[in-house]
């Protein structure tokens, strides 16, 4: 079987909405499975396998959903090659500077050092300074100054270096 044959096979599979296919030449083993294909929340209704049936199906199979995707660690997660997201460790109000009118702790394009204060999150009347755990370049700020943030909400993206 060469690549063009494989391509043809894949086209056929796609066209026929087959979700599982097995073939063993010697011993003549064929296995075809079709079902509902769920990709990115959109589902494709698939007809049944073209196997002749002697009697009506007693009941339709009940599909399940996959378990929720494993949640990203609240601290940081890889966004792209080299990009790390800093998330809010608490519920509160996000401030980019120490006082109204002051310079922001960090601006886009700034070099960030480990331990450098990135922002303040005010929770229960206390100002919590959020420090960077890594060094790199500040690439993005996801939240506007003065906005409320929930636990695990994205605050910054840093390109580590």
């Amino acid at each position, binding site marked *: 079987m060469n690549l063009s044959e494989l391509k043809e096979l894949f086209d056929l599979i796609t066209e026929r909405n087959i979700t599982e296919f097995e073939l063993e030449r010697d011993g003549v083993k064929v296995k075809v499975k079709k079902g509902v294909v769920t990709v990115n929340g959109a589902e494709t209704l698939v007809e049944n396998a073209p196997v002749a049936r002697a009697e009506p199906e007693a009941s339709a199979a009940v599909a399940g959903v996959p378990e929720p995707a494993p949640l990203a660690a609240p601290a940081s997660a890889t966004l792209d090659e080299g990009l790390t997201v800093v998330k809010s460790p608490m*519920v*509160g109000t996000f401030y980019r500077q120490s006082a109204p009118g002051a310079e922001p702790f960090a601006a886009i394009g700034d070099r960030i050092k480990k331990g450098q204060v990135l922002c303040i999150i005010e929770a229960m009347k206390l100002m919590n300074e959020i420090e960077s755990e890594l060094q790199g370049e500040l690439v993005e700020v996801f939240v506007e100054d003065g906005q409320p943030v*929930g636990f695990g909400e994205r605050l910054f993206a840093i390109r580590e270096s």
Partner: protein
Amino acid sequence: MVSRLDSVSAFLRSERVDVVSPAPTESSGRPREMFQKVLIANRGEIALRIISACQEMGIRTVAVYSEADRDSLHVRFADEEVCIGPAKSAESYLHIPALISAAEITGADAVHPGYGFLAENAHFAEVLNACKVRFIGPSPRAIRLMGDKALARTTMTEAGVPVLPGSDGAVEDAERAEDITKAIGFPVILKAAAGGGGKGMRVVDRIEDLASSFVAAQTEAEAAFGSSEIYVEKYLPKPRHIEIQLMADALGNTVYLGERECSIQRRHQKLLEEAPSPTVDDALRKKMGEVAVKAARAVDYEGAGTVEFLLDENGKFYFMEMNTRIQVEHPVTEMVTGMDLVKDQIRVATGEPLGYAQEDIVIRGASIECRINAEDPVSFLPSPGTIRSFHIPGGPGVRVDTAAHAECVVHPYYDSLIAKLVVHGRDRAEAIARMRRCLRLTVIEGVKTTIPLHLRILDDPEFRAGRYDTRFLERLD
């Protein structure tokens, strides 16, 4: 990354009653305005129940959720939502700073705690009060007085509420235990003060056994809990768990909404509740109701609350404890009275008067609630997982409170309650027949549930005759 949350938590953990505890009269001031926005510090079916009440009252809602509950219905149905932490309760639904911050950033003017989690945490209520956010529930003082077993016992005794005869706290030695036993009469039960789960517990029927049992209990208690403190209490061989639902406003109006029979329990976990109790007649209902009102008044109680009693075979009843929150089983009371306890709870929290008096409460028909838990019906082990198929019954006299649905995940982090199946019938026989058919017409696939056990309970001749006590489930093979 560093935060000062730890010090905040430490501050919050300090029980600074002096600063924030309101005087008991403070809450009975002038009527407040209706809340604009209520934060619901809970999850699951009770969060939906509270959202329902708020929506009917035109109040906006804020859902809080842990990362595990991101796709939960309470998040979907609330007007606003805030993620407050990871799956673990201690870091989310029990994490006071996150909840307070969530209330602050959303501008909620009240918090409904539901049941469980922080519902009976006086400190949480205090911190909310300090932040000018109304805690929908009684005063921190009432929560605290009722939350401490010894304090509650003393308070109730002073108020003239009958408590189970026994030692007021730990007993130093077997001789002192003998003195008490002589006063209250056999049988008695010796209990580890620090205990639970049957460890360090001895039932004593005869004076000859008292000394040896006392030492045995002490030894067991020391081994199990690191404390050999033992107290003595009158032992009821066949007690029934009967509780009285109360509703009280800030102006001192307190009414009782009849009783609930909650004797069907396993390891002190209620499984099936009914109203009215098959053993309580009008005269006893009135007597227990009035005592419950007296108990609530003794702590200037406000809001929805429940006084739990043990009832013996002679119709004598004893205060067990007061639950200072809405309860899981509140629907059976709603079914027989036609009231909406959660709406009333929110209403009186604004300072509005109750709007009804004792004589307005009429008990009609009979109601039963079955708690459908994701548990193995034999071993009672939790059975978390994904619910594959889900269908709940309809028809007359049926109510199902649930946040579950097909393809939802029953998490191992939280309690295993999937649905509360509640029925109402014109009489108890109709309610039982209705509950049987509802259990048979319920489809929950993917997790094991308590449905088979409920069917066995409902088919039991003693249950059907209404003759049962808190040890019923131990006897049901």
